[in-house]
């Protein structure tokens, strides 16, 4: 690596033995100019959707108020320390996920419709979403060339891409959020090792044999890039050196988690399909994947990601928190308080894992602020009331300030029937992707950036 007195290029990689490790945003990457002018060089905004299935216990999700967030309801409680970074949106609707003329299959429709805003054809064979592509893929198609990965798709469960997963709807609908075309979903990566290699493997993909060889001799990916790390380190100021250290330590921590997962012989709970190489424990798996997203965002390896936390309609039990019943059957509680209480517990559990990640993100500096200031993490579901299969008032929170384009710390209630696709338009604007309409949008959401 040749380091000059000029600013370090944003696309600098630490390279060695078939791997390329991207770098976080550092002061050395700012142009050589006065401090005041440097303020204009802003880090990019990154967007991620985190999707939970089967709806939410809305009684314990919606606060009784709008405006500034004060005390958060039970499910959102884990986000309390970060509530000034939370923008809660209410009354957004995905009309195409409703029954309309298509009969049962709300789970099949709502996941495929979530990021496409389009009608989903009822079939378990020739899948077709009647839009062009999902909004994340539209963003990827416009700005994806600026990063190593145009987009990143993650998940934690069930790789099936065919068969009937809900009343005649293909598993391709319930098991994917991202759609590259009306007929081509982007299956989420479930195996953390594959995610790691996608992030740090050489630009030219390794053959399986090379990957195996690398795996055998590897102690740490950081060993491969040690020489270029040392070269770079010598050129950095103390702040950047500390940042680089922290970043490489985070990567090493991911490797440690991966190694632990590879040795994990914990029996998989009945009803759960454990992807190869993944930790059996939900929280461990979630942390591993989100830690990798952190690094991907820090190093600007991608600016758009989707995370299907568990597949829509899943009947996964949550023995980690003492729940042996399947998630989906529980949500059809018919008003039984004991069943609903377990749904609430699962909702809380998901949220607490998300909040832990937010906590880790909140400590990471970027430019003159925090990494979180430049993120838009949209956490939500394609159903509100899972018992009644409702597709209005979809539970939605955005964590992060979108590069200063979101006025967080409050709840905004839109008018009923406001298309969820309007949120897509508004988020695409913030990603620098302007389109006139998307899905069933009727316009942009107003009031996201002003009180």
């Amino acid at each position: 690596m040749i380091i000059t007195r000029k600013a370090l290029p944003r696309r600098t990689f630490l390279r060695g033995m078939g791997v390329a490790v991207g770098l976080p945003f550092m002061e050395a990457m700012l142009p050589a100019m006065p401090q005041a002018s440097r303020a204009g060089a802003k880090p990019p905004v990154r967007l991620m959707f985190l999707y939970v299935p089967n709806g939410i216990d809305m009684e314990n999700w919606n606060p009784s108020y709008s405006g500034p967030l004060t005390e958060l309801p039970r499910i959102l409680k884990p986000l309390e320390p970060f509530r000034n970074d939370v923008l809660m949106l209410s009354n957004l609707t995905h009309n195409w996920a409703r029954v309309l003329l298509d009969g049962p299959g709300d789970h099949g429709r709502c996941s495929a419709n979530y990021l496409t805003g389009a009608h989903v054809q009822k079939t378990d064979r020739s899948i077709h979403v009647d839009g062009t592509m999902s909004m994340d893929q539209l963003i990827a198609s416009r700005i994806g060339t600026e990063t190593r990965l145009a987009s990143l798709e993650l998940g934690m469960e069930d790789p099936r891409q065919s068969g009937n997963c809900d009343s005649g709807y293909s598993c391709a609908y319930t098991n994917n959020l991202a759609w590259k075309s009306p007929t081509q979903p982007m299956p989420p990566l479930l195996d953390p090792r594959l995610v790691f290699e996608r992030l740090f493997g050489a630009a030219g993909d390794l053959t399986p044999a090379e990957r195996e060889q690398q795996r055998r001799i590897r102690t740490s990916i950081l060993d491969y890039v040690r020489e270029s790390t040392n070269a770079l380190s010598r050129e950095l100021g103390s702040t950047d050196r500390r940042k680089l250290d922290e970043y490489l330590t985070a990567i090493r921590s991911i490797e440690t988690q991966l190694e632990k997962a590879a040795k994990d012989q914990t029996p998989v709970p009945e009803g759960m399909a454990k992807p190869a190489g993944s930790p059996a424990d939900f929280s461990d798996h979630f942390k591993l994947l989100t830690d990798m997203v952190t690094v991907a965002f820090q190093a600007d390896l991608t600016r758009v990601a989707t995370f299907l936390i568990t597949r829509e309609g899943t009947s996964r039990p949550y023995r980690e928190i003492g729940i042996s019943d399947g998630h989906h059957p529980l949500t059809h509680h018919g008003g039984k308080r004991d069943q609903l209480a377990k749904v609430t517990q699962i909702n809380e559990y998901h949220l607490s894992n998300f909040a832990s990640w937010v906590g880790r993100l909140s400590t990471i500096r970027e430019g003159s602020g925090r990494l979180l200031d430049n993120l838009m993490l949209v956490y939500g579901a394609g159903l509100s009331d899972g018992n009644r299969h409702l597709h209005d008032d979809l539970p939605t929170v955005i964590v992060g300030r979108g590069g200063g384009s979101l006025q967080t710390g409050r709840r905004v209630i839109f008018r009923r029937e406001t298309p969820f696709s309007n949120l897509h338009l508004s988020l695409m604007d913030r990603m620098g992707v302007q389109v006139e309409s998307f899905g069933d949008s009727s316009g942009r959401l107003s009031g996201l950036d002003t009180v």
Partner: protein
Amino acid sequence: MQARGATLAPGILFDSDMGRNIDAALALSMLYGLGRGRVIGVAVNSSSLEAASFCDVLARFYGSGGGLPFGLAEDGPKLGDAAMLSVPLALRDSAGQPVFRTTIRSAIDTADPPVLFRNALLTQQEKQAIAVLAGPATNLAHLLALNGGRDIVAAKVQLLVMAAGAFDGTQDPRIQADTASARKVLAEWPSPIVVVGTEAARAVPYSDQTIESDLSTVPNHPVVAAYRAFRGDKQSAGTSGVPVQGVLAALFASNSNAEYLKLSRPGQIEVTGDGRTTFKESPAGTHRYLVIDPAEKERISDAFIKMSAVRPAAGGRGARN
């Protein structure tokens, strides 16, 4: 919900200037009386919460509540004081509770009319829906302009019945309120249109007697309360009889094959610069207007009474009696 391929009675969209005249209240009441599920979407063209609330009251009264929300034109004209809305909504029973219940408290409890109509139409089979307009055409023009709106109208709507316009050389305030939208709808609406002009409404007025002798047999009928408040205003001005364009439109929408409802030949209806409607006959035209045959007035009045006097179905009677 309609099942794909099933044969059902048409679903009806109703858009009106509720509160400006008793016409819209009577018309909507008649449409709700057709039975649960027939009215699929209701909006008002003003920004009056009371107007939307009164629609909610009517839906509950007829046991048709709980579906899609009501549309309210948030940036539409203000209504001012409309006694026919405010009086019934302010009525309290002996316990101090509202006589007529509504859950609309603010604009967030309502929907943007074009989005509401689009979503309602998507529940319908091809060419299954009828739209009834009893007010300015603003909301329907916005529906046509909505992303995908025109295509959905073309696919789902078999007929638009517009209670707006006049074919005796006079002007209709419903057209004058938004001539641009009226022009757009008449020029671009993809289904056939039947217009009910003010001259037709004047030919078959709605009588007080129908209200007092038929509707009043149902305790706490919201339309009776609204009508009395409305007539209270108008009687002092010395008017008598109520021209009801919207009621005629509702009647046509619910029974377009009735032999007592005559139509003009097909042609094209346009809006002039001063807000008058003109008709030009043309065999290929998709517009017609309602023509009242003097010999059929009595049958039309009887049909008003028959439709208006429908008692709420079980599960209705949203009023606290």
